[in-house]
């Protein structure tokens, strides 16, 4: 089992290298001369050229990339074009905020969505089912940023219960976390419901009932675990979507995380910062996918057997 984990982690490395190389190349195609961006418009041509040599911008792209990776492994992600701050410092300062937001969002989403989906499937076509599925449908149709705006409108402006932005205590975290979790909650609830429905219809559930097991026992002991398997895939995808929603949520609520940093750095055309942020995101996605794959092994013994080989 651990061999499998190690193999998967190792397999991540070429993938990450490819992706980062592509990103590096793509971003280097951005218009604008970094040297000039740093020195300003008034600098002379020679000064700019000198700066370019200094920064190694005239080297072939492969060399530049190799240099970048080399530095990256030492923990150096370059310096911001805009204000000369070290990228790694910026990122490491802001990452914990995003992490807090993301983890809370996932927890809230799972705690609400999973039971909701299961109950809706068990009580199919009841009022509870129809009602919660209508809510879920609205949930996936609401743009996250609008939900955030409406949240601010209701709770900050109208009711004055919660602050409209910034960090500082539980109160300021409620709206952002809710907005985050909403972005994936509805999708998870719907998928849980449909995979539960499919499982409930299967032959082995009929066998379980023919054994004399009560309905609740059948659902909990037999149906749930089987329904979780396809749900896991969707949970993984939804979590990735939620993480990319940080760019919106953090901007709306002035939350000092990586998402907001990415937005500002793109607007400033600050490439090292952009690259740094996206690499962080990509690593997060890879870790999420790996976790989901491992969870498959936990839930489904067939897959566990495959992994063991």
């Amino acid at each position, binding site marked *: 089992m651990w061999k499998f984990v190690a193999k998967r982690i190792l397999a991540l490395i070429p*993938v990450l290298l*490819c*992706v980062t190389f592509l*990103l590096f190349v*793509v*971003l280097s*195609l*951005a*218009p604008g001369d970094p040297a000039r961006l740093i020195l300003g418009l008034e600098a002379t041509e020679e000064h700019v050229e000198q700066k370019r040599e200094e920064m190694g911008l005239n080297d072939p792209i492969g060399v530049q990339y190799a240099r970048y990776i080399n530095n990256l492994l030492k923990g150096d992600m370059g310096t911001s074009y805009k204000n000369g701050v070290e990228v790694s410092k910026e990122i490491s300062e802001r990452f914990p905020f995003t992490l807090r937001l993301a983890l809370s969002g996932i927890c809230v989403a799972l705690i609400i969505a999973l039971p909701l989906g299961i109950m809706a499937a068990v009580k*199919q076509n009841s009022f509870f089912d129809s009602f919660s599925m209508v809510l879920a*449908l*609205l949930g*996936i*149709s*609401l*743009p*996250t*940023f*609008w939900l955030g*705006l*409406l949240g*601010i*409108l209701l709770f900050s*402006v109208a009711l004055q219960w919660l602050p409209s932005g910034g960090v500082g205590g539980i109160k300021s975290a409620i709206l952002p976390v809710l907005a985050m979790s909403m972005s994936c909650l509805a999708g998870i609830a719907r998928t849980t419901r*449909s995979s539960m*429905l*499919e499982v409930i*219809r299967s032959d082995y559930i009929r066998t379980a009932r023919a054994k004399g097991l009560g309905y609740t026992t059948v659902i909990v002991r037999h149906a749930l675990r089987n329904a979780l398997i396809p749900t896991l895939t969707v949970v993984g995808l939804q979590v*990735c*979507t939620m*993480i*990319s*929603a940080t*760019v*919106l949520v953090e*901007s*709306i609520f002035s939350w000092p995380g990586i998402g907001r940093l*990415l*937005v500002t750095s*793109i*607007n400033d*055309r600050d*490439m090292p910062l*952009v690259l740094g942020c*996206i690499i962080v*995101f*990509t690593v997060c*996605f*890879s870790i999420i*996918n790996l976790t989901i794959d491992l969870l498959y092994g936990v839930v489904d013994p067939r897959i566990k057997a495959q992994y063991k080989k």
Partner: protein
Amino acid sequence: MDKNNASNSQVKKQGQFLQIWRRFKRRPSAMIGLYLIILFILIAIFAGVLFDYDAIAIKQDIANRLQPPSWEHPFGTDDYGRDILARVVHGTRISIGIGFAAVALGLTIGTLLGSSVGYYGGLYDMIVMRIVEVFQAIPCMLMAMIVVAVAGANPVTLAIALGLAIIPTFTRVARGAVITMREMEYIESARAIGSSDFRIIFAHILPNCFAPLLVQSTLSMAVSILSVSGLSYLGMGISPPVPEWGSMLSASRIYLQDYSYMSIFPGVAIMLTILALNLLGDGIRDAADPKLK
């Protein structure tokens, strides 16, 4: 006998479409989704007829700024005095337009790639799918942001960026459907009478993969429209004065306290469009595979 099989698949196709349509019609939510989408498409097409673009949606009228909803201006006016209803209507054109373009791109390339990969399999399959998996993990919006960072933000780059971002999903759907179909017997028959691979894929397999691809199209269009408005909200998409729903919401942020109506209507427009697309997608999915409800 084999020719019979091959032409039987044509008959099967037509009967299938009719069956799916009939089941679709039975569900009121699906029909609502369909009507709403048609309504939005019509609004998008006739936006210019309803409200003149330059005179009403763009032209500033400072005297009339920040008027709450009234008979004259059902959605009110914005901070430049422009009629919000007119701007929302024109925004439909942009959102639906970019959405369609992105889906057209993603659908075409994704289906071509996915069906060839699914049909031929082997090393080709493995390599392409590994690459696709890598890109699949990057959500639409981030993909689009990267492209915007490099190529700037305008409807064309956005459509291309989103189209590229949704190719992996379509590839997977097409591949999955083709893999299921290629084992069917009428494909064996078609091959036995000497049909070329091309003909088999296009005349026999793809028409039967219609439903999952259509469902995915509605979902991907929803994601594209959400991404465009999200990006515009952040200032990385369509920029003012073009009336895009997301950028309108962004502009309304500072007026949230006193002129909250500005934040409502563009958001409702987005929500209704996405809702309609989801209802449509759900309806097609249920109609094509009725045992799952």
